[in-house]
Every structure is written in C-alpha cells, then in structure tokens.
C-alpha cells in the first residue's frame, strides 16, 4: 500500500498543489483536544479511535455501551474505517489518537518505520472455530493433507491468516510451501469459492457460521489450533510519540478495554447487543456466531510469538522485542 521514497518524491509536487487546493475547500478536521483538569489528571479526555467493522473490535463498543470509559473520565469516539491501512495515515497525521489494527500489519509498519508503534491494549485472540479452512460439500478435499497444491483465499497476502495457518499446517505434516494463496476481497470470497477460483476457503466469523448452515460447507482445519491456539490477532495501538504525551490517558484507555473484556468473557449478550452498531451482523446472527477471545490483560509472551513467526517468514527485517512496545497492565 505504501509508496516508496522515489515514487513519492516524483509526484509530491503535483499532489501538494492539488492538496493545497483541496484543503482550502474541503476543510481539515481538527481533533478536539481540550485537556480537562477535573478528569483525574488525564492529559486528554476526548479521544478518537479508528475501529474495523468486525467482531474483533467489539470491546471498545462494549466499553462505550457499559460506560467503562466514562468511569475512567474518558470520552471515546469510534471511527469505523474499511481497512486498517486506511487508518495508519490518520494515526500518523494525528487525526485519530489510536486505532484497532492487526498485529502483523502494525509490526510491518513498525519494521518499515512508517510509525513508531505503541501497543495500548491487546484486543482479540483467535478462539477455536472463529476461523476455519472450509471445503464445499462436493469438494475432494477431506483432510489437511489434501490442501497441498490447492488454492486458498486470504484477505491480504502476508498477513496473520497465512502466519497462523503455516504453523498449523506444519504441525499437521503438511508442507506450507505447497499452498497457493490468493488475495480475495471479503465480498468476493463466496462467489470465487462457488465459482471454483479457490479450492478451499479461509473464513472468519460470521462467514464460518453462514457457510456451514447455508452451504453445508465442511471444516477441514482450524488455523488457530495447536501451535497457533489463541493466536493474538488485533490490538489497540497508537504511536510512541502519542503515548509519551498521554501516558495517563493511555492507562485509562487500557483499563476500560480490559474491564470490557472481563465483562464479555461469560456474557454473550453484552457483545451481541453492540454488534449491529458497527458490523453488518444482525441480532439473530450475533446469537449464533463464535466470538474470538477478548483479551482482559496484556501478555508480551504470547504476542512475541507473532513477531517471531513473522521474522521466521522473513516478513520483518529485524527482530521486534514486543515487550518494549507494550505498557504495564494497570487494570486490577
């Protein structure tokens, strides 16, 4: 997604010209930031956070719905974006304070020095059956071994889907190098699966439930099992610079997210209630889908796995010490 330096330099002049004109008419949005002295010493009480229209983002909406941010003296405005790469420029430019993003993308951005990453709070981890490699009822694919030489979709190449599946395939004596991955947008998964462009589908919820009930699809493999069990997927992140300026706000935000996750642990209703606010999942579907795990504490050990596997796959140029990017857990 990001252009290289030479390409940037080449078109920067024109883009600046256009930009100057567009800015003068479009008007720029300035984040409202009025630090209030009465809010327990928080550096900033109103923050904007980019979220994704996926179940994984639920904790922030539960925290809003259950007034957990309010308790911390925080007013959080979520801004749904269509994909995490859209939010990175917003974060870099200070249009938002934090964003919900998957670790693989965020570590890659950090590695390429697109931003200096700071993890504010862990978000979601893959739960059993929340992700699934599935085959259509009449497909010759029966076992994990049958996946060799086959084509599987991913939302984005070289992302967490491949990373987790690679480990699970190895554990099942399947050669991960023999899988062909193609990038298929979310909307096109079902058509390309039915049309035969992909042999097996890599699905997340709510598609796993939909494919099982409406198409009779069979589950071949759970990409979040064995070595990749409870694989951390996404978290709430910001830049180191923002964190240095707002450490108390960051701690308050983390507490509210962790408390929301605790509340969500054994309470599906509290999650199902907020899903229609930011996803396309209606109340009926919300009652049947498998949720991911929502993290109620931060754990550098399990998150380090993601960075290590990325290094192993050569998606990173150097090792990342994940602990150095994380904040101490302040929730009780």
């Amino acid at each position: 997604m990001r252009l290289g330096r030479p390409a940037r330099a080449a078109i920067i002049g024109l883009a600046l010209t256009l930009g100057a004109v567009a800015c003068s008419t479009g008007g720029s949005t300035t984040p409202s930031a009025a630090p209030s002295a009465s809010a327990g010493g928080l550096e900033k009480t109103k923050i904007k956070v980019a979220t994704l229209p996926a179940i994984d983002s639920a904790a922030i909406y539960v925290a809003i719905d259950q007034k957990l941010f309010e308790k911390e003296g925080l007013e959080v405005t979520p801004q749904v974006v269509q994909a995490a790469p859209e939010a990175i420029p917003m974060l870099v430019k200070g249009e938002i304070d934090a964003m919900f993003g998957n670790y693989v993308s965020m570590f890659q951005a950090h590695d390429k020095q697109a931003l200096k990453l700071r993890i504010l709070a862990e978000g979601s981890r893959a739960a059993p059956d929340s992700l699934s490699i599935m085959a259509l009822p009449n497909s010759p694919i029966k076992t994990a071994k049958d996946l060799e030489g086959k084509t599987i979709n991913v939302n984005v190449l070289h992302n967490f889907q491949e990373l987790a599946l690679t480990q699970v395939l190895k554990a099942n004596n399947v050669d991960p190098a023999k899988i062909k991955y193609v990038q298929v947008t979310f909307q096109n998964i079902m058509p390309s699966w039915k049309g035969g462009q992909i042999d097996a589908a890599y699905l997340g919820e709510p598609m796993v439930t939909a494919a099982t009930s409406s198409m009779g699809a069979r589950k071949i493999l759970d990409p979040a099992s064995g070595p990749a069990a409870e694989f951390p997927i996404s978290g709430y992140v910001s830049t180191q610079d923002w964190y240095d300026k707002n450490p108390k706000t960051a701690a308050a935000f983390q507490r509210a997210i962790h408390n929301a996750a605790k509340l969500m642990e054994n309470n599906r209703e509290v999650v199902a209630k907020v899903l229609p606010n930011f996803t396309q999942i209606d109340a009926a579907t919300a009652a049947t889908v498998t949720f991911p795990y929502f993290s109620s504490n931060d754990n550098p050990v399990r998150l380090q796995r993601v960075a290590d596997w990325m290094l192993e796959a050569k998606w990173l140029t150097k090792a990342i010490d994940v602990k150095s990017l994380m904040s101490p857990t302040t929730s009780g």
Partner: protein
Amino acid sequence: MSAQTLAPARPASAATRWSRRAGGALAFAALIELLSRTGLVDPETLPPATAILGRAATLMADPAFRAHALTSLLAWAAGLGLAAVIAVPLGLLLGSVPIVDAATRSVVEFLRPIPSVALIPLVSLLIGTGLQVRVTLAVYASLWPILYNTMYGLRGVDPLAKESLRSYGFGPLAVLMRVSLPSSAPFITTGFRLAAGVALILIVSTEIVAGRGEGIGVFIFFAGIAVPARMTDILAAVFWVGLFGVLVNALLVAAEQRAFRWHHARLGETA
C-alpha cells in the same frame, strides 16, 4: 462515417428519441428480471429488476442514505469544479505556448495513466484522510479529459481568424480571449462532460476503498461485507449513481447543443 455516404437520415423528433431510450432501458430491466426470476443467474447474486427498483425507491426515503448521497454529490461537484478551474487555464497555456508544452509533455504523459486509486495512501499521508482524499483523486482523474480537449480545441482554431486579429494589432492575450477560447469552447465542454463521468466513478470508488464512514461508496461497501451480501442494496445504490450520471450527461449535452449551435452546424450534425 455512414452519415457521409448515406443520404442524411431525417432527424428523429425529441419524443421519438426519448421513447427509444426508454424502450432500451425497459428492455434491459426486463432482461435482468428474466435472468433472475428464471434462476439462470442466482437471484441472490442478481436480484430481479423490480426488487432493485423498489429498493432504490425506499432508499431515497431513508435519511441515512440521502446523507450518504449528498456527501458524494458535494464531493463530486467540488472535484469536477476544481478540475475545470485547474485544467482549462493549464490547457490554454500548454496549447498556446509550444515551449511549455514540450517541456511538460513527458511529465504529463507520465502522470496521466496513473490510476487515481493507487494514490490514496500518498494523498492520505500528505493532506489527511476523508473528504480531501476523495476530492483530490476526483480532481486528478477528471483533469485529463478537460486538459486534453482544451489543448486539441486550440489546435483546431482557424489560423486566418487569428492572423486577422494580429494584423489589426491585437496582442496574443487578446487573440486567445477573442478567438482561441470561444472557438475551442465546444471541445472544452465536451472534455468537461467526459470529466463529469470520470469524477463520479472516482468519488464512488474512492469511497468504497477508503470512505471513512460517509458516501454512497461506503453504503455499497457495508452492504457488500454483510453475510450474505445485500445485493439488492448494492444494486439499488448503483442504480442511483448510474441514473445521476445519465442525467448529468443529458443536461450537459443539451447545454452544449444550445450554446454551440454554430459548432454543431459546422460539423453537419443536427441538434
């Protein structure tokens, strides 16, 4: 051209032309209805035309959808307007000063084929996300038809008229304003009409990729990520975008024919 070899056909009356167009649209709708109702195409993928049109009607009554549509409309108007403001003077400059044209040609030829959507990350980082991105990309893409038509329009200006003015002592600027600009105006408006369509495509597609919550493209995106995808919603929104494009085009064609009757008469067309 067949018009030159065959005896000129009698121009159809406005009523006949409109009824033919409506007939074509009806036939197209009937085809969709048939494909869907007979199950030749999965009705979940292609809902019947009546369902799409019915949904389009109810969508217009939905304030949320109207807000999306209004955002897109404003972004479109801003993008197209800015493109014209930039491209017409630039086209006049490039078309009338050969040395500037020669010096910038390679850059222009390099920039022109860049797909605007590829510039989203760059534009977002430079000037911020949201409305600015949409408008900037629409300006970028719709600049070219106006720019090129302006340049080609200038090329076709009657040299005799220019010479006459010069011999009466008019300066280059006066020649440009009195002869070159009026005589290339029909080309410029054609460029503008093409740009109107390009800008519409860019606005909606940018919204689908990175709309940040507002616009018809965002509505289409969210309908698309539902499981199963809400195809009727998607196609109903697409219907409105298409209809808007047709109306704008028809209006601009009518305006062109009214304003430049002399031009069309010269080309042997019937208005």
